[in-house]
């Protein structure tokens, strides 16, 4: 497996702690299977999803390779292949497969991947925005008024139709904005990866790191806000 490891402030020690095989008590050297007795080992709770796939903590991921690795590991852990094994091994296989599935689902999606990395590096992102981001403030207020008016209107009337056209245009605009944000996020992700690759330990690098994480957090929460507005809008106008 890939042995790159990022060394970041506050991150946990990624290498699975050297521990003992639950079965033969020998010191574990294999990754998920004991090298001595070949028994499956539980994926440690401390193992993050990047490490789980043997990947460095980077935001650009080759999805083909990720999929191939996911399939390979599914073949190693899936409960289907543990039917004839002991109950302990079956339990481990079930837990590992569930973890693997979550890891794959998270890393496969660029947004979830960034959210997850942010969580690992700087704590949870789930500070949910309740008011619009400042640059959207006016627009959103206006939108809310239009939605109210549309809801109150006779949909078949002239006004109703005019409001609907307005809302459809508004939805497109917001969709576009969401895409712009995703584009911006991608840029920051590339910057993040480049910074990590340089592996500098200067105070300048540290400041840059914090700046990128802060930006990431902001975009992610703004994007979630806009996404929810778009979804609500879609539900209203059908």
């Amino acid at each position, binding site marked *: 497996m890939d042995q790159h490891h990022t060394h970041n402030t506050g991150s946990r020690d990624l290498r699975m702690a050297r521990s003992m095989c639950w079965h033969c008590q020998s010191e574990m050297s294999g990754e998920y299977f004991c090298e001595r007795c070949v028994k499956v080992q539980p994926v440690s709770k401390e193992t993050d999803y990047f490490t789980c796939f043997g990947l460095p903590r980077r935001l650009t991921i080759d999805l083909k390779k990720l999929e191939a690795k996911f*399939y390979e590991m*599914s*073949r190693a852990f*899936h*409960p*289907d*292949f543990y*039917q*004839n094994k002991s109950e302990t091994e079956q339990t481990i296989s*079930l*837990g590992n*497969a*569930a*973890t693997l*599935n*979550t890891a*794959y*689902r998270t890393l496969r999606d660029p947004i979830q991947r960034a959210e997850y990395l942010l969580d690992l590096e700087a704590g949870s992102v789930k500070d949910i925005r309740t008011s619009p981001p400042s640059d959207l403030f006016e627009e959103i207020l206006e939108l809310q008024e239009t939605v109210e008016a549309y809801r109150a209107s006779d949909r078949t009337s002239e006004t109703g139709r005019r409001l609907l056209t307005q809302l459809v245009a508004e939805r497109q605009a917001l969709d576009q904005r969401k895409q712009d944000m995703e584009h911006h996020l991608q840029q920051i992700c590339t910057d993040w990866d480049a910074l990590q690759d340089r592996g500098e330990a200067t105070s300048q690098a540290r400041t840059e790191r914090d700046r990128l994480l802060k930006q990431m957090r902001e975009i992610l929460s703004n994007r979630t806000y806009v996404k929810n507005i778009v979804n609500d809008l879609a539900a209203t106008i059908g």
Partner: protein
Amino acid sequence: MPRIVGIDLGTTNSLVAYMKDGKPCVIPGRTGRAMVPSVVALTDNGLIVGDSAKEHLTRSPERTVYSVKRFMGKGLADVQNELAYFPYSLTERGGVIRITLGEKSYSPPQISAMILKELKQRAEAHLGESITKTVITVPAYFNDSQRQATKDAGLIAGLEVLRIINEPTAASLAYGLQNKTQGTIAVYDFGGGTFDISILKLKNGIFEVLATNGDTHLGGDDLDRRIADLFLDEIRTAAHLDLSTYPDYMQAVRLEAERAKVRLSDELKTQIAIELPDGKGRYTRELTRDQLESMVMDIIERTLIPCRLALKDAELMPAQIDEVVLVGGSTRMPLVRQRVQELFDKQPHCDINPDEVVALGAAVQADILSGGTTDMLLLDVTPLSLGIETMGGVMSSLIRRNTTIPASAKELFTTYVDGQTGVDIHILQGERELVKDNRSLARFRLKVPPLPAGVPRIEVTFLLDANGILNVTASDMRTGQRQSIDVKPSYGLSDNEVEQMIEDSFKFAQEDVAARKLIEARLDAEALIVTTEKSLSEGARLVAQDMLAAIREALTALTAAKGGTDPKAIRARMADLEQTAKPLSVTLLDDSLKRSLQGKKVTDIT
């Protein structure tokens, strides 16, 4: 590892299959047919299953259960609006429907277990070994309660259900194995009672389900009802006759509607004839395929909605589907094929028998579990979101629909009041916002040590296993101690009840065997009596008087034994009779041989 068989426990028909030299094959019954109608009837001789039970649908409709799968994991309120269609009587106890047959009432898993037992016996007879382990298929859109009910049915039938797998994915296994397919496929499964759509990616032996959707209350049964309602209306107007008070005629109409529907898959028009009660003559009419199609168009359209939703969840356009596979008897309807073809813009495949493909796939999965097949692996998803009730009657989702299983989610719980010793948790399944619009799965009370509010930290793990069945565990984060949880299912049998049913079923199994032996002995005795009497009438002049008297005596003895209940006594008297009557039958044989030779030239006899 003992052999594992694959079972398709269908609404209409059930089958059992196994893996033979790397190829799945279905197991036929004595008559050569592999399909067992999913019908159970209570007769004077006891419970019967399958083809013979189907004959009782019109003879004793109130004692003949069909489409029991519609009731699995359900309460009475769930099926309220279709009760009128079923001639047998349904009640509810402990959140579980009960079906009354004679003096007893049975839960849907018990009825299903009778069908499973029939399949089990069939497999045992065919393979010459005892069968105790199985994979059973369920509609992909079955919820946790329905899956659990299916597992219970297996247990009651004396089968360990090693895996519950989804019908469309099972079909994809059989299809993929046969055709070595790679790419994205859609499996459209339209049977008797349920509809499922699954979209999968097939790559190097991995069958990854991308999305699944469906309707567990949409199938050929609904088409039959639509047609039957038309007939009933016309009979009401034309003959001034309301058949709803005649359960037997209602069944006859339903069956005629189904037969007409099936015929119209091959023909453009068909003749309907139904005998009416009370000397009202007979109802006849012609039904054309066009008429049928316009009558049921909306039902067929309803199958397309889940298809579009599944595509959306898989983030695919119809054109990105490489192949469409048709499963289930209802996909034989030309209109269904046409609509599917239009939606996906490609000719659907139906090169594996749509009746058998699910059972074949179950056999493949059974082989994977037993270690026979190692290059194929199915990665399935949960069809419905899983969540818990939060403040204000809102469902908070923990595992989203279409998440690959096994899947787990952890939640941390604490207390709001000092010294609080428990937290009530209500588990739900569904896609709606509000608790009341989703399916209640279970409730349990989490035990908490009495501490100041907010101090206890109990982590609850919700795990959906590879069967899509929920397992809940909890542990106290402060002490690291695990807690056992007693989950009370909202619509399921309790463990105790299942155990009782297993016991009963075992008891009945022995009674059943005894009953079966008696029935068989009587039937054989009857046959022997008939042939002996025939011999007597033909050959009385060929044997001595005292011989005839002896035969008559043995015949009387057998007739008496046949009236009793001891199969051994019957067999003994049969042996006596055969022995006594032997000279007679030998003489008769010689005689007929002689006569058949008369008038023939020697050269003809070779």
